[in-house]
């Protein structure tokens, strides 16, 4: 099977920089993200929340964020400015994780040829599942406060399937 990735994919460094910018804006001094060594093609290795947004038009692709359960809840608590012992509901976490992928996806879209549209985020309690019609274009694995964070960009697969 020949797999050809669509021309014009975001650079891993750019996706990393966007993710770091989002974390810094939301968390300030607590935003430190550290690189995480994960084998290629491995599924996300934690109880997760995930969210995806699709870019359509001049460029086609899907931006996905996966976060460990504890990290997702801590991040939501911070985004809502709840007290440290405040509890974010599942609805809050879904809202926060969706907003994260909206921010990262919107900025990724800005790097790529347009005009394109950004979909509303789709959020799930669980790790992301990717269509067999897409191929991974870039992936960033990080840890925030010991919790795993993954941002990936998939593009349509071209050529024979």
């Amino acid at each position, binding site marked *: 099977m020949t797999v050809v990735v669509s021309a014009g994919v975001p650079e891993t460094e750019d996706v990393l920089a966007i993710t770091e*910018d*989002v974390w*810094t*804006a*939301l968390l300030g001094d607590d935003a430190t993200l550290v690189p995480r060594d994960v084998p290629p093609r491995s599924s996300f290795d934690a109880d997760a929340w995930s969210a995806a947004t699709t870019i359509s038009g001049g460029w086609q692709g899907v931006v996905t964020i996966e976060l460990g359960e504890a990290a997702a809840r801590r991040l*939501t608590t911070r*985004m*809502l*400015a709840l007290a440290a012992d405040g509890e974010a509901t599942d609805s*809050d976490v879904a*809202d*926060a994780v*969706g*907003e994260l992928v*909206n*921010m*990262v*996806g*919107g*900025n990724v*879209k*800005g790097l790529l040829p*347009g*005009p394109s549209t*950004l*979909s*509303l985020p789709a959020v799930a309690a669980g790790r992301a599942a990717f269509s067999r019609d897409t191929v991974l274009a870039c992936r960033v694995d990080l840890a925030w406060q010991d919790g795993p964070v993954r941002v990936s960009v998939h593009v349509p697969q071209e050529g024979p399937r």
Partner: protein
Amino acid sequence: MKILIADDSRVMRQIVIRTLRQAGHGGHEIIEAENGRQALDLVRTEAPDLVLSDWNMPEMNGIDCLSTLRASGSTVAFGFVTSEGSEEMRQRAASAGAAFLIAKPFTPEAFDDALRGVI
């Protein structure tokens, strides 16, 4: 001053309200909408002085809300707070009658810069 914040994310509405406060614009009355349709209704019934709106929302997006407002003769000050800050989106926003576009992720300084010309 009355400010209408339109965003389908409750989390983001909270962050916008907090950032307004951090930017030194905390003393205003805030009303909230979950989508462009609701924002449209609230502009008509609540007469806000400023609308801060997300772009991508269900029911009615921000740009359609703004276009509908302008087509109906409304001159309410309107700014976008959106993850899409490309030049293309800024031009679309300005052409439709937006006063500014604040790109997410944002800082209190970005809010202050944008709002100073309106508030």
